[in-house]
């Protein structure tokens, strides 16, 4: 659920529940993005060093 959904209300329950979910998803998403981005860079560097 996002704030633009019709069910959304700016109350504590929505902010805590949905905020907690987005917070956790953000950490997981940011962590995986960092891993994949760094892997792409590392792999490209490895390729260059082999040429």
């Amino acid at each position: 659920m996002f704030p633009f959904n019709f069910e959304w209300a700016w109350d504590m329950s929505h902010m805590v529940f949905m905020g907690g979910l987005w917070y956790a998803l953000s950490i997981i998403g940011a962590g995986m993005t960092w891993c994949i981005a760094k892997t792409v860079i590392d792999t490209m560097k490895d390729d260059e060093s082999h040429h």
Partner: protein
Amino acid sequence: MDSALIPKGVQRCPFWQFALFIGIAGLIALWGVYAMFLCWFKALNQTNMNDYYGFALWIWADLAVIALGGGAFFSGFLKYVVGKDELKNIINYAVLIGFICYSSALLILAIDIGQPLRGWFIFWHANVHSMLTEVAFCLSCYFAVLTIEYIPLVLENRQIDKIPFFHNLSHNMHEIMGIFAATGAFLSFFHQGSLGGVAGVLYGRPFAYREGLFIWPWTFFLFTWSAAAYGPCFTLTLTKLIEKITGKKLVKDNVIDLLAKISGWMILTYMVAKLIDTWYWGAVLAPRAGFNFADFYSNNAFYGQWIVFLELFLGGIVPAIILTNKGMRQNSTLLTLAIVLGCIGVCTNRWAMVCQVMAVPVLPFEQWQLYIPSWQEVATTILPVAYGAILIGISYRYLPVFPQERELNPIDGYTPIESENTHSESGKLQPAIA
């Protein structure tokens, strides 16, 4: 036949033997899948659930596997946050067990909701006043974390590791695994707790209702505590089982001893809290609602005081005494007895908090409601067991699940060479482990 996929320096059974094992487990899984499709296509009339039993065998199985899978989050917490580095030798297996337990829990929920195509409603149309919403959020997120923790192990397969991208990805994921482990511990704390909270807030059911702290009934904290305490027992039980099946020592005794000791102290402290909770409930809360302690355990064919004895004494006090006592803990038979009793204890607790809650009569004109699951419910509950056996079998055969296996089971004439390098838990390159 598949020797190119098997980690170097370890021995595995012949392929036909492995295929036979997977085939038998696969047949059992197919039986469960058939029952699952019956439930989806013909609806929940395939079960023996009714107006009394909205929660039944499935939800018990769900709570039980989530508690037993707690070994993953607690081991991860101990290894990455507390810094118990010895546990790196069992963490892969704990993660694998956790992955199986949580994927099984999600599978069971997908069957239980009847219309899995609408499963996403809980995220999009969330009821923010429901503890079960919190459970769904945390369970899904934690399953994502467990998948992330399991992926590096898959990438360490001998053939996959040869591909530079996957080799680097595995290395980079190891580097920040502490962040994922801490996130997993945070998520687990809340969903384990909320599962207990669901029972504790049922003020119309004196068997389950508890007072608590702010919005959280005491069952919230007891469930989290018990999952952290008993989860490692399940990890150790399955370690003992796989060692028995393979006829090999896979984890060193000091690692087993450390996890057993921590589990023992967690169980002991949990039992103190649980006994106080039980006493207060039986002596104060239940009488206040018009019940005696004995009312919950009499006048029916199944629920007697043996349940309390099994859960609190055999499944709680006995394992706590054995696991906190060094001499007893280091006796292999007593250790096995303690960890198995621990698993039975936590499963009994979850059964009482799911099914006995439903069975106890609440109103004066009600009778005890006993319930026998249908074969479809039984088959779909056995399905995760078969699936777990298959995944453990495949992972053990092709992945370096146990880092100490090669050291504990040396093969004559085998010497590790530099090109077999793979990653250690710390992310640094180490000689191939497994």
